[in-house]
């Protein structure tokens, strides 16, 4: 009898446990790291992330200016000091306005923001993900359309503004704050020691790889455990091979798709480079690969402008340069390309109590004054024309992007549905590196996945 009652209790516990599991799941309690390239580095921060107090702020009337506090939400905990300095300038120029910068851990940000925008006490100004990442908020009607209200939007090219546009209604919801571009980092010290220089042809590129390998360096510190890096590597190496912007236009118009032989060949390039990546590359994480490059065990690292801050902080003594991968044989485009994308924007909460002041603030964020401070203090590229990064590496990225721009198309055009293009290609390339898939099959999988939601514009 005793065992029976024990079992009864256990049955209850079991039910409880299951209920708990199910109940918690939709409530977004767990939060794995979201390592989007757009999120740049997102190290865990000790920064307390208490919800900001909503200071009841009346919309200022024309005659008497009541003090206003604007709350800005962001996923960049590491930029808090820099933003505070930037907003101090704004506060000085706009007496009566206080700007409070409240960053959250990047990995939790999307969920916190989606919840914060639903009720009272949310932020006034919000940092927004770009392209597909913006759409859930737009479709939920949580953001204020800015076109026609913010004059500085005219500073940005239509291409850039695409990242801040609602794909269904065509309205613009944010003022772009950053762009990211891709290239190959190399260790100048190692290159000098081995008598190597920046390659300008594919043969020279292979020669650099071979020389590094012969001298016991890992030529390219590539991570294949973190799948989000793989489409980045693919686009940095293969954009000219498949045709970059030309191919992008054709795919969007429905004239071709990802099974195009040129695109397949561009995927194959990643496989061709595998001998120059670390051994068992699928076991190497993003952090491992950065460590390999920092500790000078690897000569090159394929990455983006979002890593400049990390190298400067972690390896201030490293002498780094960047170059563009020369076009591979049979490339559709005969010059190197610099894939890039709009990193994110600042928008206004549709339920903000101080909408007018919030719009003024984001308008200011489209000025050169803000852009220059942004690129200097935060060490990222500003999309505002005429801003000049002080860091030589960033300046180089900026120059490359001006000379040979291209879209990182899987992020820019193929994150509007699920499964996203970057997820599909990342998983596919990983399997290719394991020998489980061919380049054709990877392309097929990408095409099959996106075609479930992607409609070419005929």
């Amino acid at each position, binding site marked *: 009898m005793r065992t029976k009652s024990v079992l009864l209790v256990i049955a209850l516990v079991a039910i409880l446990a299951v209920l708990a599991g199910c109940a918690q799941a939709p409530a*977004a309690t767990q939060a794995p790291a979201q390592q989007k390239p757009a999120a740049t580095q997102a190290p865990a921060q000790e920064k307390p992330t208490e919800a900001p107090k909503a200071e009841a702020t009346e919309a200022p009337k024309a005659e008497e200016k009541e003090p206003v506090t604007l709350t800005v939400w962001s996923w960049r905990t590491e930029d808090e000091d820099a933003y505070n300095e930037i907003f101090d300038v704004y506060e000085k120029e706009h007496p009566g306005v206080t700007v409070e910068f409240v960053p959250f851990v990047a990995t939790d940000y999307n969920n916190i923001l989606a919840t914060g925008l639903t009720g009272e006490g949310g932020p006034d100004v919000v940092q927004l993900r770009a392209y597909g990442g913006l759409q859930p908020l737009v479709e939920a009607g949580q953001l204020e359309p800015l076109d026609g209200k913010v004059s500085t939007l005219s500073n940005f090219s239509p291409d850039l503004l695409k990242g801040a546009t609602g794909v269904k209604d065509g309205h613009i919801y944010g003022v772009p704050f950053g762009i990211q571009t891709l290239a190959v980092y190399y260790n100048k010290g190692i290159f000098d020691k081995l008598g190597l220089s920046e390659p300008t042809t594919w043969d020279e590129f292979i020669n650099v790889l071979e020389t590094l390998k012969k001298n016991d360096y890992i030529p390219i510190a590539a991570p294949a455990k973190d799948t989000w890096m793989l489409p980045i590597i693919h686009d940095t190496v293969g954009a000219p091979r498949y045709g970059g912007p030309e191919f992008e236009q054709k795919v969007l118009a429905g004239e071709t798709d990802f099974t195009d032989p040129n695109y397949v060949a561009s995927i194959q390039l990643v496989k061709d480079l595998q001998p120059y990546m670390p051994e068992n590359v699928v076991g190497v994480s993003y952090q491992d690969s950065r460590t390999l490059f920092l500790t000078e065990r690897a000569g090159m690292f394929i990455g983006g402008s979002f890593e400049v801050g990390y190298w400067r902080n972690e390896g201030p003594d490293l002498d780094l340069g960047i170059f563009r991968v020369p076009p591979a044989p049979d490339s559709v485009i005969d010059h190197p390309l610099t894939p890039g994308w709009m990193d994110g924007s600042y928008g206004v909460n549709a339920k903000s109590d101080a909408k007018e002041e919030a719009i003024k603030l984001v308008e200011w964020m489209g000025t050169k004054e803000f852009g220059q401070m942004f690129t200097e203090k935060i060490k990222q590229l500003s999309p505002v024309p005429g801003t000049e990064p002080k860091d030589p590496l960033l300046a180089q990225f900026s120059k490359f992007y001006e000379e040979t721009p291209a879209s990182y198309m899987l992020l820019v055009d193929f994150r509007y549905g699920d499964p996203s293009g970057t997820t599909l290609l990342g998983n596919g390339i990983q399997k290719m590196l394991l020998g489980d898939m061919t380049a054709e099959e990877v392309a097929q999988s990408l095409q099959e996945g996106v075609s479930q939601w992607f409609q070419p514009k005929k």
Partner: protein
Amino acid sequence: MTATTANRAGKKKDKHAKGVGSGAPPWTVIALFILPAFLLYTLFMVWPLFQSLYFSFFEFKGLARGGFVGLRNFHELFTRYPLNEQLPRAFLHNVYFFIGTMLIQNTLGLLFARLLYASRFGKRFFQIVYTTPYLISALVVGYLWSLMLNPLFGPVNQVLKAIGLGALARPWLGDPATALPVIILVNAWQWVGFPMLLFSAGLAGIGDDLREAARIDGATSLKLFRYIELPLLLPVIGIVTVLTFIGNFNAFGIVWAMGGVNGEPAGATDVLGLVFYRTAFRGGVDAFGLASALAVLMFIFIFGVSMIMLGRFRRWEEDLT
């Protein structure tokens, strides 16, 4: 069989009669005591459960609920590429996880419990040592072992190389063939103390008279274990099995810490919990309905199988007594 049932029914009646006779508090008082817990439980457990069932029939736009779509979300789960491939694969991994944990963690737990039961020295010490890891968060355990098993910097491979077993060194978490088994082992490392404690309690509950009688009849230690202790541990084995099942099918933290959100490498460690997470929080605009549908199916499956298991073990137990 019928005799036992009648017997049990009789006892139940007895107990009840005794309760009323001894002046049990009126039901209003009982209700008052139950109410706070009941309210909290309903609010945070039952309500979200029904809510996710409700959500699973709707389309979503971000957090805003859209129109009713019937069973479309359930249909999508099994037809949308690559979800239609990931879901069965993840389910299979959960099954492996459960079988592996039963074979390794729970068998070792039983072994440790038996050895500790027999030992005179250090019993308390070892009990504490074996149960310490499960005081640590699964995420911390996962990261710790990820560092140890790191193919480039991790000590595990370095030690293997240093003692001449370099041929065995491999990217433990980077090779699809070893990744899931390694996670099962790490999970067992963390949790082995739990079945051990339950089995220890079970063993302690077996009367010494039974053991003595068996000894007098000439049973060896092995026979004693096989024919006396093991059958009497059946209720505990049932509990451990069901709890393992529930834990393994809800696995998330340890797999996420060691395999990442996609169950790297190449989905070799993907489990239902990760598929759910990705669907809900990486799924784009219309994600919550689909994720709710998956949560509902997981609940029905886990609940159903747990119930069946409990029934099965109870019948075995009754057959034995």
